[in-house]
Each structure stands twice: as structure tokens, then as C-alpha cells.
């Protein structure tokens, strides 16, 4: 247990608030000793016998305006409600019920609760002579504005993206799902970060077993900190090690909502702008939110294009290596003379050339991500143009490998899921190695190995390759292709949705009856 690892200096966790004002103040000062951002503000409440009181809040998390104009004003400036005298005995009750004009006001009776709440952006008010504290919500502080999602831009479709603030993210989802059936269960994880995690789903659509499984897996987490989605992602996955992302994430609220509406579960994490989506399958890696906003034929064509891109990104360098070093006979005769001419007198084998260039490309990509945008562009110019051109001119590599690596790079960028892109990069190198050792057979073996791995994966009980293996015929309408909206009458069965009916049948466009339509 963590508590044993880092013993808490406060022996008594649930120390009650005392009647003595000074004891309380001392105890809380002790708790927040050396915390420079915690403000203790002592004042006196007007009443028959002036009452000493103090409020306590964490200044970075609070809105000063609320504290000054609503909280302090209502406590300090008034002489109490008409006909009621504030005394030691009724101070808390009167303040809570008649004076403080804020939305969220609760009463606490122990120091631990005060500590927790204050660190979440609440202010605590303690009054002389009463063993209770009023806790009011004065949250504020700076947060990022809602921006267009950087990692998943779209041309058509909403432009708002998740931010780091938990409440804002909840707002973005709630605005889209105006039903009480949309549920969000909040859990708190991380001994030191106290990160809020919300399990969001649509009641009656999501399978309760999946929801329960998600809750249990999150409840199992016992960690000191959760700073980003991946902290919990790797702990709640089905497999200990997987090359492919078993949990999807998104920056787009529309995508999160459409997932919830399909019967999936969205895990919203405080301070992360990327909620997790479970269960996720292989096909979801190749889908973008925009697919649903464009004409279905165009969207289907784009999806097929992405599958081709996926195959190119995975296989092109490996196949090139295999063909050039093992199966030259597969090349058409016209091409073979050109190619062999171009490769005359080059020092490296094709496999080495391609590995070298792929490696350079990965370096460039990594360098580009870590640098500021302006310098990043310079890097890509130097890397892509200068090195590529110079290497060919200097006779170190053949133009073929440069072309191959370039096409591969472009193809790998058209896979929408970044995480999937990473696993593709890894597999690509493995396949190049396999191809350079065993040619086409090596690639085949490699592919079979990948296939076995894919077939054995599950994401929250859903087979990763669904709806292809196992085959779910009705789900194919939203996999490689994207059928028109009037045809998408059922939710995907692969998410184990409870209620699979999404909308009524035959809502497709109908031609008006002859003569019946308006001109």
C-alpha cells in the first residue's frame, strides 16, 4: 500500500473540527505549513457579540472576484438577515441558509475534508465557537480556451476540442448529449495528484458489463500520480504488452460523443485533453470523425485509401527489399534495366540503404516534433531535400530507396491514429529485416505473426479484429466503407451494445410523388 510507503505526517486522518477557534486555526496552519499559496484570512463577523472567523483557500485555484464580492461581502457587510440574531450557536446555519449567495455550499465537520476541498479550489469558512465549517465553491484560475483540436483537424465538422480543464470537457460533452441517460461516474485516483476520472456512458446503450469492467479496472489502480491518459491506459489494458493501441483516445468532443452513442465508454481524465475511448478495435484506428460528416461515397473511398496507405506504410520498404534482393524476376523486363543501371556501383545493399534512410527519416520526424515550429520547418528542408538530394548525387544511395522511403512516409501520415502510426513504424522495421533475411517468405511469415498477434488481442472483451474476425456481417456497413446515414440503422454489435437500434428503417431520401411535389 502506498500509505505505508509514504507515511502521512498527520497521524489522525479524520481529526474533527474543535469548538476552540484557536485550536482549529493552529491545526490548519500546521497542515498547510510552508504552503505559500494557501491563504488564511481572519476577520470578524458583525453580530451581537462579534465573532471571530477565518476563511481559508488555495489562491491559485480560486477566483478572487467571487471571494471578495460574493463570499466576503455577504459575510462582512451585512448585519444578518432581518429578525435573526447571529450567535455562536446558529452562525453556521444562518450563514449557510440565509447569507451566502453562492451555488455550492456544504458543511464539513473534519479537518481532512477541509484540506481536500481547499486543494480543489473551495474556500473553507470557520467561525468561533462552532465545530463545523462552511465550504463554498470559489473555483477559478486560468485555463486554456477551447481551441481547434491540433491532432485531429477537420474541414467539415465542429471545431471545438477538449482542453485540460475537467469541467469544460464535461460541458463539451453534455452540450451534445442532452439526456439524463448520459451518465458520468467520478472516481478519484492518484495519492498525490488526486486526479478526477469520469467514466461516461449512455445508459441503456452501453453494455453494463463493459461499464462495470471499466469501473473495476480503474478502481484497481493504486498509484501516486496520474498526469495523463496513458498513466491509466497501460494499467487498464487487456494485454500486458501490445504493439497496437487497445484503447483509443481523441481530442474531439464530437468523436467522444459519437463513441458514447455507439455504446462505448469514454474515460475523461482531469488535466488531460485526451479522453480515452473503450473498447476500441482495429477498424477504429482507420476512422476519422470527418468520415461521418462527408458524403458517404466519398467517405468510403477515403477509408479504402487509408487502408491502402496503411498497407503501403507497412509493406512498401519491405517488399522493395525483397524484390530487389531476392526476386528480381518479379520486375518487368523494362524496369529491371533502368533499376539495375541506377544501382550500378552503389556501395550499400538495398536493404541497408532503406534501413538507413528510414532511420534518417525517423530522426527527422522526432527532431521536428521536439523543436519549435519555425525551426522544425528548417529541419525538414535540410533533412528531406538536402540530405536526400545530396546522398543520391554523391552516389551513396539509389534514387529508388529515396522514393520508397518518401512514399512510405506520406502513407504513414495518412493513418489517422497517431498511436497506430507508432506501431506501424516499429513493424515496418521488423518487416524490412525479415525481408532482407528471407525475402518474400520472410514478409509472409512476418505478416502471419502480426495477424496472430492481432487475432489474439481483445479490448475490454471485444476481439480486436472485429467485425472481420469474428465476422459480424451487419457491422461491415461501417468498417471499410461508411454506409449512408439512412442505412446505419443499428449500432455496431461489436461494442456489445445493449440497445442496437439506432434509428428507424427506411428514412432514406424519397422522391416526391409525381405531381404531388411543389414546383
Amino acid at each position, binding site marked *: 500500500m502506498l500509505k505505508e510507503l509514504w507515511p502521512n505526517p498527520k497521524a489522525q486522518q479524520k481529526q474533527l473540527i474543535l469548538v476552540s477557534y484557536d485550536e482549529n486555526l493552529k491545526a490548519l496552519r500546521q497542515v498547510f505549513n510552508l504552503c505559500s499559496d494557501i491563504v488564511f484570512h481572519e476577520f470578524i463577523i458583525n453580530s451581537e457579540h462579534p465573532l471571530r472567523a477565518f476563511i481559508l483557500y488555495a489562491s491559485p485555484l480560486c477566483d478572487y472576484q467571487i471571494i471578495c464580492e460574493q463570499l466576503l461581502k455577504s459575510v462582512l457587510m451585512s448585519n444578518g438577515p432581518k429578525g435573526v440574531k447571529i450567535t455562536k450557536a446558529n452562525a453556521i446555519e444562518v450563514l449557510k441558509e440565509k447569507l451566502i449567495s453562492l451555488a455550492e455550499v456544504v458543511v464539513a465537520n473534519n479537518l481532512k475534508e477541509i484540506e481536500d476541498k481547499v486543494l480543489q479550489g473551495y474556500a473553507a469558512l470557520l467561525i468561533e465557537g462552532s465545530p463545523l465549517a462552511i465550504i463554498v465553491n470559489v473555483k477559478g484560475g486560468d485555463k486554456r480556451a477551447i481551441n481547434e483540436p491540433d491532432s485531429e483537424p477537420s474541414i467539415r465538422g465542429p471545431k471545438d476540442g477538449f482542453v485540460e480543464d475537467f469541467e469544460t470537457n464535461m460541458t463539451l460533452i453534455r452540450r451534445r448529449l442532452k439526456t439524463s441517460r448520459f451518465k458520468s461516474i467520478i472516481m478519484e485516483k492518484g495519492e498525490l495528484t488526486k486526479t478526477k476520472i469520469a467514466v461516461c456512458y449512455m445508459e441503456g446503450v452501453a453494455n453494463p458489463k463493459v461499464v462495470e469492467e471499466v469501473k473495476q479496472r480503474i478502481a484497481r489502480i493504486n498509484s501516486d500520480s496520474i498526469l495523463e491518459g496513458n498513466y491509466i491506459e497501460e494499467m487498464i489494458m487487456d494485454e500486458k504488452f501490445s504493439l497496437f493501441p487497445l484503447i483509443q483516445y481523441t481530442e474531439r468532443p464530437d468523436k467522444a460523443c459519437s463513441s458514447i452513442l455507439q455504446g462505448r465508454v469514454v474515460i475523461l481524465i482531469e488535466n488531460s485533453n485526451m479522453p480515452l475511448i473503450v473498447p476500441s478495435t482495429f477498424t477504429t484506428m482507420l476512422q476519422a470523425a470527418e468520415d461521418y460528416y462527408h458524403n458517404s461515397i466519398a467517405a468510403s473511398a477515403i477509408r479504402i485509401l487509408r487502408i491502402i496507405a496503411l498497407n503501403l506504410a507497412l509493406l512498401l520498404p519491405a517488399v522493395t527489399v525483397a524484390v530487389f534482393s*531476392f*526476386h528480381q*524476376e*518479379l520486375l*518487368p523486363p523494362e524496369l529491371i534495366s533502368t533499376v539495375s543501371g541506377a544501382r550500378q556501383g552503389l556501395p550499400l545493399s538495398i536493404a541497408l540503404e532503406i534501413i538507413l534512410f528510414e532511420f534518417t527519416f525517423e530522426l527527422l520526424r522526432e527532431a521536428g516534433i521536439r523543436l519549435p515550429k519555425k525551426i522544425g520547418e528548417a529541419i525538414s528542408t535540410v533533412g528531406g531535400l538536402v540530405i536526400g538530394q545530396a546522398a543520391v548525387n554523391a552516389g551513396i544511395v539509389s534514387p529508388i530507396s529515396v522514393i520508397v522511403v518518401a512514399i512510405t512516409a506520406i502513407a504513414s501520415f495518412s493513418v489517422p491514429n497517431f498511436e497506430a502510426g507508432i506501431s506501424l513504424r516499429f513493424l515496418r522495421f521488423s518487416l524490412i529485416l525479415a525481408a532482407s533475411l*528471407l*525475402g*518474400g*517468405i520472410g514478409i*509472409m*511469415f512476418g505478416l*502471419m*505473426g502480426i*495477424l*496472430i498477434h492481432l*487475432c*489474439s488481442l481483445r479490448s475490454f472483451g471485444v*476481439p480486436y*479484429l472485429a467485425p*472481420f*474476425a*469474428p*465476422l459480424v456481417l451487419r457491422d461491415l456497413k461501417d468498417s471499410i466503407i461508411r454506409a449512408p446515414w439512412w442505412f446505419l440503422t443499428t449500432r455496431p454489435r461489436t461494442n456489445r451494445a445493449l440497445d442496437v437500434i439506432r434509428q428507424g428503417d427506411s428514412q432514406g431520401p424519397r422522391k416526391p410523388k409525381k405531381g404531388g411535389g411543389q414546383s
Partner: protein
Amino acid sequence: MLMFVVIMSTGVLVVPSITIERAEQSAWFAALLSLPVALISLGLANALGKRFPRKTLAQYCETLLGKYLGKLAAFGFLMFLFAVSIIVTREFSDYINIMLMPETPIILLNVILLVIAIYAAVKGLEVIARIAQFILPLFLGSIIIIASLALFDAKLGELLPFMEHGLVPVISGATLPATLIGQIIIVTMLFPMIRTPQKVAKAGIVALVCSGIFLTLLTVISIAAFGPKLPGDLLFPFVTLARYIKFVTVQRLEFLVVFIWVSGIVVKVSIFLYLESVAIMQIFALKNKAIIFGLLFMVHTVLATLPFSNPQETNLVLTKFWPLISFVFELVVPAGLLFIALLKGQKVVLRK
């Protein structure tokens, strides 16, 4: 579906060669003839499976034959499984060795194939079935593409005269495809793991009929494209066929065959390895999977590498001894077991 992939993968390469050698232009009929034999085999398997829905063949051997005789019979069946997977592995490496990678040692190919197949086998039946399901459409697609492109070169006249030398060569040509698709008998091992045993018979029949039809079709096309004599002399007529195709710019389609072959073989070997592991666990009451798969790996590597020195020998074994051994385990043993079961009055049990 699984069975279809299992059978076709080996069938595609070898069948045309051997059947055509024996039956010449009537070989397609031989391929078709093998179908009823396999259907009998399936019928036996199904009848047994219905009587012992919760047991594999290895387990009900003991129930029927007593402890020692039963163990012996089950062990015999295990040896049969071994023989199939070893021969398949060897055939595969031979093919790769001859057609693609003449300088790569056979043992290396065996080892890689076995490593991948064992990876799948360790993952279990469900994973193997899903792999089969995933590759099936690609598999069928490739066969259909090759077959339809080969039609441009086909001369149907080559198929005549029908049964020039009488029925005998046709039947002798039918033995090998019959043993191949007769491998459906392995469903006796699968019964307890199948969720809907009622559907086994139906799925099995579909798989068998499809395999039979495809084998027949391929034989027809091979004969029609190459004439009655040549395919018999070729080791792998189907590959030559694919290589032979030249349709506008589409040519050299062997890679499709390699695709069919590798994917099918991996599935096939992995399912046999899986069954072997199950059988070993049940016969010898072992539990440790790592040891079993380790043993299987070593046995297969050694036996698939050593005994045959060249592909001709493999083919010889396939034609001379193999049909006999296969028939014993695909027809005689199950029939015997069913007979004893009937004598003992074992009723059909409906599994809830």
C-alpha cells in the same frame, strides 16, 4: 471455415500433380470422387461427437476400449496427427526451397514456420479460428483470380476423352485428395470446444463440398491449360500455372500462391499442433504447456528435417504409404469406435 482453409492449403499445391499423373485427363473426376469418402469420415466424426459431446477422441477411446487399449488407440491417433503436421511442414519447406529460396537450408524454414505456428497454437483455438476467418476471403479471392486468369489459356478439349484407361487409375488418383479432405476427422478432437455442436455437421459439409469443388476446379484448369501429361510431371502444377499467366500487364502471380500457401500452412500446422498439445495433455495427464510445446517444437523440427532428403521422397511417401495410414485413422478407427459405442449402447446425448 477453418476446415476449408486447412484442407485447401495443402490440396492446392499437391493434388493436381498426383491425381493427374494417375488419371490423366479424367483427373478432375478423381478429385470429385474423393468427396464422398471425406463425407463418410465427417459422418463418423459427427456420430461419435454426438455420443460424447464433452470428450475428445483421445478421451472417449479410453471410455470405450478400457484404459490401456484406449490409451494405445489414442496414442496411435496422436501419431497420425504428428505425421500430418510433420509432412505438411516438410512439404512447405520443400516448396519454398525449390521455388523461391534454393540456398536457404530447409531446417531454417522449418524452424520459422514452427515458431509462428506454435505462437498461434499457444494462443488457442479461438485465435486460430479467427485467423482462418480473416484470411479466408483473401484466400478465396486469390484462388479465383488465378483460376479465372488461367481460363484464358485453357483448352477444354484437353479434358477428353473421359476415362480413357477405365476406372482404376481414376480411383487410385482419388486416394490422395480423399485423405487430404478426410483430415476433417480432426473435428473429433474439437467437439468439446465448439459452442454449437449441432452446427458441426452442417459447417463440415459446407467446408468439404467447397474444398471438393475447388480442388476439382483447379485440377480441371491445370489440365486444360497444360494438357494431360505435363502437370503430372511438375511438382507443383498450380504454381507453374500462376507463373504461366500473362494477362495484359498482370503477370507472374506466384506471389498470390505464396500468400495462399503460407497463410494456409500456418493455420494448418498451428491447428494440428494445438490438437497434439490437447491430445498429449489428455493421454499423459500433463499440465505444463511450456514443456509440451517445447517438445512438439523439437520433435517437429527434427522429424521434418531429417527423414526425407529431397522433395521426390516426400511425394513418394505421400503417394505410396500415406493413403493407407490415413484411411486407417480417418475411416477405420472412427468406424471401429462408433461400432463399439453402438455395441455398448451409447446413446446420443444432447448437450445443454
